[in-house]
């Protein structure tokens, strides 16, 4: 591979701006509810505050618990190396990297789940079991969406299928594109434990999924996990925005469109969170089933488009 070193720059926006995404979501929710809300940069301050603190470890917890935040964050960081950012080409690209992308995110989730089980707390075990179950439902839908994109662009590399979105080929395929992006948005909500799947702000252990798993983490560990989940939100948002964005045009315009699109995704998530309540747990698999059906329909339409 002879990718120039400055391709690494494609990772910078995600590293620097992902906590801002959480800030935008929080601000949107506050404005819709008629409050003033926390400042946009609050997530950065939270991370700084947590990094300055010490960590507390339970006596029953082993090295699994201590390793979990670092492994999780590292896996997500590596996944970020495969995504393009607007005009910037991803530094890591090879045929089939979309499978690695999906399973790096799965590895990060596995680390958090293992850490949660390691605490020996009943609450966290419950959250871990829910997270594992729902991610099993989200995975087929996510692969169907990636499959749709790969089929359309005839490539198995994320950099190509997301970066090279050709305006002409897509404008002929509006319905499958719309279906696939709707499915991806549902997956984004589920994977990042946002409302209507999970409530990121609640403190009732019985209703939480993701948050309950990280109850025992503190200090820098918690900062790693928070930063990791912000990054993950950014990654899913970046997949959604890049698959919709047309390629070409001047680099600065493409970058501005990309960043604007990311802000748009954050506002959309905020609006959904303001408008909806959490679904009952038994309804969540139905929601993810819907995402899979939408993505499947998109695939069907694409294939049918190839028929006479």
């Amino acid at each position, binding site marked *: 591979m002879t990718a120039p070193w400055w391709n690494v720059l494609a990772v910078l926006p995600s590293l620097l701006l992902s906590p801002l995404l959480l800030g935008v979501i929080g601000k949107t929710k506050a404005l819709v509810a008629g409050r003033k809300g926390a400042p946009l940069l609050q997530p950065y301050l939270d991370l700084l505050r947590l990094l300055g603190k010490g960590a507390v470890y339970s006596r029953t917890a082993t090295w699994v618990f201590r390793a979990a935040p670092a492994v999780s964050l590292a896996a997500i960081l590596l996944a970020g190396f495969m995504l393009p950012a607007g005009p910037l080409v991803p530094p890591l690209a090879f045929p089939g990297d979309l499978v690695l992308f999906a399973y790096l995110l799965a590895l990060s989730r596995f680390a958090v789940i293992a850490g949660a089980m390691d605490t020996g707390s009943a609450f966290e075990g419950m959250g871990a079991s829910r997270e594992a179950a729902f991610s099993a439902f989200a995975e087929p839908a996510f692969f169907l969406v990636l499959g749709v994109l790969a089929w359309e662009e005839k490539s198995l590399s994320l950099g190509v299928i997301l970066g090279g979105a050709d305006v002409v080929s897509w*404008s*002929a395929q*509006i*319905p499958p594109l*719309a*279906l696939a992006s709707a499915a991806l948005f549902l997956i984004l909500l589920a994977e990042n434990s946002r409302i209507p799947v999970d409530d990121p702000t609640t403190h009732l252990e019985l209703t939480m999924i993701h948050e309950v798993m990280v109850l025992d983490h503190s200090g820098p560990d918690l900062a790693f996990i928070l930063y990791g989940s912000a990054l993950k939100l950014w990654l899913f948002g970046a997949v959604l925005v890049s698959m919709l964005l047309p390629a070409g045009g001047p680099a600065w315009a493409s970058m501005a469109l990309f960043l604007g699109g990311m802000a748009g995704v954050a506002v959309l998530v905020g609006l959904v969170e303001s408008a909806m309540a959490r679904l009952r747990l038994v309804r969540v*698999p*139905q929601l993810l*089933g*819907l995402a899979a*059906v*939408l993505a*499947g*329909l998109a695939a*069907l*339409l694409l294939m*049918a488009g190839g*028929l*006479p």
Partner: protein
Amino acid sequence: MSGWASTVLVAVILLDLLLSVTSRLSVLIRGFAVQAAGIALLALLLDGFDSPHAWIVAGGTLVLKAVAIPYFLNRAVIRTNARRELEPLVSYGTSLLLAALGVLLAFALASRLPMEARRAGLLIAAAAFATMVTGLLLLVTRTKALTEVVGYLVLENGIFLFGLTLLRRMPLLVEMGILLDVFVGVFVMGIVVYNIHRTFDHIDVSALTTLKEDEP
């Protein structure tokens, strides 16, 4: 086929999926009405906006199926006080899965169809079959009389959609006759549903199997 027509067809298929999962009768009726309106629009999109034949068919469909029939059904919902389908024979999750399988089946069937009417494309036949399958699904798996009426109407939507591929050859009289039949049918079913409700205090059709004359 224009991009607009295929967008409407995809919307029709999505509405099929919605109809197969919703538990609220009001959503069911509104979904059916929107689907009928979409099909009316499709009649215009496929046949061109300058054909008077298409305008009459679209107008008739819109007035009867998107306005009049939903109005009667909503009145029946209020009178029988049945807001929700509480006990379907299969769960809503399974329903969605079956409907999705139906869509798959519809595409497989449509691609095998030796249609000279392919001028409208594969998608319209697939959407028509998918809508018919959804209608059948609603008819078979629901237990409330009103839901079954909607199932019958959705089935009819599918048949009408399939007829659109042959619109130029289908005489206007036949179209109008079908629409009138459907309307009268819904009218009668509304009265029947109300009477079932008055006699039994609910509109659960599974109870109808126990209906018997007294043994002599």
